[in-house]
């Protein structure tokens, strides 16, 4: 079976807990090496080996828990970064389609406007559902939800007998602004997170 390399975020801080777990051994080794402390240390170890082993075991468990917690945090961050990257791709695609929608509306190609509006609406809904209930994204979710609603209204408008081009273009422009704001915010957060 092929082994995958361990990501650096899982390994870079591992030496500290290992050193912490082994540090009592170092102290005892020193005490054994020094002729002055050797008899007392031997006697202490013989009398209390159970307690020493217990305390050392507890230390090892705490270190292992610390490493596991760090690994879990790193894994959560990796999943969150992946979610943001996927959302960014979807929203950039939605923004591009929204701009195309404007061009089709100016050319009064209502079938294409209808199609693009549906595509942007689906992208927006999928993104909001994927983001879940993260409070930090509330404002962005509101914007994306509004774009989805604008797109739905554009779809409805293209069904009407006399399509109102101005109102469609206004909604498209508003959607473009909102999508650009959300995409810009995600880019800023990605850049500040990578520094």
């Amino acid at each position, binding site marked *: 079976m092929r082994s995958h390399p361990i990501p650096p975020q899982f390994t870079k801080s591992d030496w500290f807990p290992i050193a912490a777990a082994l540090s009592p051994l170092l102290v005892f080794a020193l005490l054994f090496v020094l002729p002055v402390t050797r008899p007392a240390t031997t006697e202490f170890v013989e009398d209390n080996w159970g307690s020493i082993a217990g305390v050392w075991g507890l230390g090892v468990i705490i270190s292992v828990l610390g490493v596991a917690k760090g690994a879990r945090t790193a894994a959560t961050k990796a999943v969150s970064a992946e979610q943001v990257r996927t959302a960014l791709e979807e929203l950039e695609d939605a923004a591009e389609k929204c701009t195309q929608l404007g061009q089709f509306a100016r050319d009064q190609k209502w079938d294409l406007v209808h199609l693009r*509006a549906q595509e942007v*609406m689906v992208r927006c*809904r999928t993104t*909001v*559902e994927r*983001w879940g*209930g993260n409070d930090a*994204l*509330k*404002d*962005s*979710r*509101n*914007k994306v*939800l*509004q774009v*989805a*609603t*604008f*797109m*739905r*209204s*554009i779809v*409805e*408008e293209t069904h*009407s007998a006399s399509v*109102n081009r101005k*109102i*469609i273009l*206004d*909604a*498209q422009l*508003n959607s473009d602004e909102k999508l650009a704001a959300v995409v810009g915010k995600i880019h800023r957060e990605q850049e500040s997170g990578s520094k």
Partner: protein
Amino acid sequence: MRRISDQELINSLIVATEEDRIDWQPSGTVDQYTASFGGKWTLVIDKGQNSSGDDIFWLDVKDSAGENIVRLTPYDDNRIPALFEMARRFALKIDQALADLLKEIDKAKK
């Protein structure tokens, strides 16, 4: 869980709209205004005409998937046309335009 009445919802929306706490925006269709909240909920208030040419109003509350969870009409609460007018004034920035107009009229007086 406590049951929320239609009147309670409309009351809350009217107060919030009066206090400019709802960012109503014109949608992509005539006489329709929308606002989103909490990253989950979307309000859509709409005006149309029935077959005899009378104005009809309705308010939809949608979830994040775009599903309508509540639809209220003036039969449920007769303040819906007033809420529509408030949403329209906010979305089209009518009060700001009128304030600007009054300022210009005052300037012309001096």
